[in-house]
């Protein structure tokens, strides 16, 4: 005779730090990722603010040239490897993939925990360069040879850290693919999966198939530094272009590891706040796979000025333009989803709208640098920096924040202060565009990136940009503070479905119990976003 007790949520099942850092529950692992990722994000953002401060005026403001080189490298390594690659998949993927599929965990729960530990070990290795060795790397996050072979700074450790973190990414991808294949709830075939699951599926394949290449390439850098083998350094017989090829064979697909999950969460939020089915479900689902596929073949567009045959450059440029097609398909479908929807303007929707706006600027500027002729002019200028931040921060970063506000009540069972959240959003939006739009302009004017100094004629845009960084930093602090205040005490409790969403996570308790579901999840009649046949959700 079993006793029937009320469900306790996953926060309450066990207490103590060890019940967290050795937990195999995907929800706890997701929160471990969230807290570590947010800490690294704040660290990376601080470095970014310091860089902007240095660039406030021409000449030296607060740091030496060498320090600046190390700061932008650390900023890049933290933001790319520790924040944006794991951000959405490791946090929201881990938390919501099993729930969206109607199951209680990922396929390999212990492997999932191992991924987090590997991530933390890699992160500590990356940060250890601050304290040990001859100072943090000054090569930029790309570790381009031959400089990465010759510099006296501690490149070896930074590179090994990136290598180790790569394994975490591979294992998460592997875990998600098997989970999606094996653990869908009865009745959920591939075409009834929510779109976030589709985008995670495409992302996971890239993580699995691209990351090993960067792993072995980074090991070759280590071998070259330690053993003096002439792999990439031309003065001892190596080929630096080969390094660039090997690096971008991974790192270009990695851009889609960063972007595709953002497309996924946006596709989740739009139907909820338009209260209607997503427009073009299949088009959005398959365009994720198309982006993942084409993304493998366009790495050469990072190297238009590095020395390639005209034919190779032409082909890489054409293929780069091809990626715009599935991406545009998504944007059109998102906008069409809002058409004739019953739009409920909530904080997450604001982030989604900002995402679409900023991601479009990022996408269009991407075409500008993807075209051969204009790239010759813009290569290695601030235009590229602006483009990249519009895609990654304005796109993925804003989608991450939007998802945080969207799933917040489900994760913690409470609501944040919506007024403060709106103010923080406005600050973020204004700050972001004030910070990065001048970079596009100053890049067109010809200001090269990665210098701590610049010519006097670039002063005004740089000043505006730095002011923007202060607004943005205020917005980030306000947003994070508001979210923390919400779950510590102030937020009101919410029921199962505060946004009137339709996917399976809204059918369970907030926060979910350890087993995720207290009753069998019900699928809508026609596809995952069929609001006309939405299963009734009793509290």
């Amino acid at each position, binding site marked *: 005779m*079993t*006793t*029937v*007790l*009320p*469900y*306790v949520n996953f926060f309450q*099942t066990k207490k103590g730090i060890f019940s967290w850092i050795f937990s195999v529950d*995907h929800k706890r692992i997701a929160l471990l990722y969230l807290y570590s990722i947010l800490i690294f994000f704040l660290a990376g953002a601080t470095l970014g603010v310091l860089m902007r401060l240095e660039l406030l005026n021409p000449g030296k403001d607060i740091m030496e040239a060498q320090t600046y080189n190390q700061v932008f490298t650390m900023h890049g390594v933290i933001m790319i490897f520790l924040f944006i690659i794991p951000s959405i998949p490791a946090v929201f993927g881990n938390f919501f993939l*099993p729930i969206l*599929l*109607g*199951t*209680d*965990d*990922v*396929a*390999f*729960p212990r*492997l999932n925990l191992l991924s987090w530990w590997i991530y933390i070990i890699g992160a500590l290795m990356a940060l250890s360069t601050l304290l040990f060795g001859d100072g943090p790397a000054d090569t930029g996050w790309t570790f381009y040879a031959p400089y990465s072979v010759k510099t006296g700074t501690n490149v070896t450790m930074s590179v090994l850290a990136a290598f180790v973190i790569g394994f975490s990414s*591979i294992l998460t991808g*592997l*875990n998600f*693919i*098997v*989970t999606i*294949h*094996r*653990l*869908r*709830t*009865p009745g959920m075939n591939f075409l009834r999966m929510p779109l976030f699951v589709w985008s995670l599926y495409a992302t996971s394949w890239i993580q*699995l*198939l*691209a*990351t*090993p*290449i960067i*792993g*072995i*390439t980074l090991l*070759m850098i280590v*071998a070259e530094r330690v*053993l*003096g*083998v*002439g*792999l990439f350094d031309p003065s*001892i*017989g190596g*080929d630096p272009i*080969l390094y660039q090829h*090997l690096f971008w064979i991974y790192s270009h697909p990695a851009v889609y590891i960063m972007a595709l999950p953002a497309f996924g969460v946006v596709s989740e939020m739009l139907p909820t706040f338009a209260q209607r089915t997503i427009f073009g479900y299949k088009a959005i689902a398959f365009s994720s796979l198309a982006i993942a596929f084409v993304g493998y073949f366009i790495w050469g567009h990072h190297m238009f000025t590095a020395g390639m045959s005209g034919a190779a450059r032409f082909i890489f440029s054409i293929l780069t333009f091809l990626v715009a097609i599935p991406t545009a398909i998504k944007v059109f479908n998102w906008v069409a989803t809002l058409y004739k929807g019953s739009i409920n303007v909530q904080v997450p929707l604001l982030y989604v709208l900002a995402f679409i706006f900023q991601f479009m600027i990022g996408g269009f500027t991407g075409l500008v640098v993807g075209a051969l002729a204009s790239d010759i002019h813009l290569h290695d200028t601030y235009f590229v920096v602006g483009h990249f931040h519009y895609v990654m921060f304005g796109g993925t970063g804003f989608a991450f924040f939007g998802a945080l506000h969207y799933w917040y009540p489900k994760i913690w069972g409470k609501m944040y202060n919506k007024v403060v959240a709106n103010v923080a959003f406005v600050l973020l939006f204004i700050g972001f565009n004030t910070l990065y739009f001048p970079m596009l302009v100053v890049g067109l004017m010809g200001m090269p990136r990665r210098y701590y100094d610049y010519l006097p004629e670039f002063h005004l845009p740089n000043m505006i940009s730095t002011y923007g960084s202060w607004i943005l930093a205020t917005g980030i602090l306000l947003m994070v503070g508001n979210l923390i205040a919400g779950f510590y005490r102030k937020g009101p409790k919410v029921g199962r479905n505060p946004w009137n969403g339709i996917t399976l996570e809204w059918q369970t308790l907030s926060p979910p*119990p350890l*087993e*995720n*579901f*207290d*009753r*069998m999840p019900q699928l809508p009649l026609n596809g995952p976003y069929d609001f006309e046949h939405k299963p009734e959700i009793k509290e």
Partner: protein
Amino acid sequence: MEHTTGFVLPNSGHNRDDESSRMGMWLFLFTELLLFGGLFIVYMVYRMLNHEAFLLSSFELNVTMGTVNTVVLLVSSMTVAMSITAVQRGNNALSAKLLAITLGLSLVFLVIKYFEWSAKIHHGLFPGMDLYKALPKGESLFFFLYFIMTGLHALHIIIGAVLMGVTIYRTKKGLINSDNYTLTENTGLYWHLVDLIWIYLFPLFYLIH
């Protein structure tokens, strides 16, 4: 803490699912292929750039030892495949024996590899040593690639041997039987991959003239 309401999800991630384990192994093997793939690309590029030097260097390698090792690995692949069939038919003792033979063969491979490597290190051909530094650049690349690729492969042999040991132990304990032999299968899959990579390494370094 008991808190059951009698409701259990049918598709729990904590259920035993052999299909998941196999799929996970296959996906892991893809990543291994790509890991070596990066090195194969580097090999290809530098071979094309330094054709003569690679040819000259390859004469330094001992084809007899390489051939013996190839045969050793091929036979070990056969014995591991046989051990899976044995456990499927319920013959655990035979399965453990065949795995033990595979483990023995992997050690034979490593011993032969040890003699090959130590001969070259004795000559000073390991990256960083005196003779190595004096080599023309194409030849030094050849020996670097030789050491890193066969070294990474040997590391995989060692991991495979450990995995084999675990599988033997669990088979003898009765934890692996005709209803539950995914570990044996996955060990076999991994071992075949290690074998397969050697099948490419052997001609690339020893045979192509």
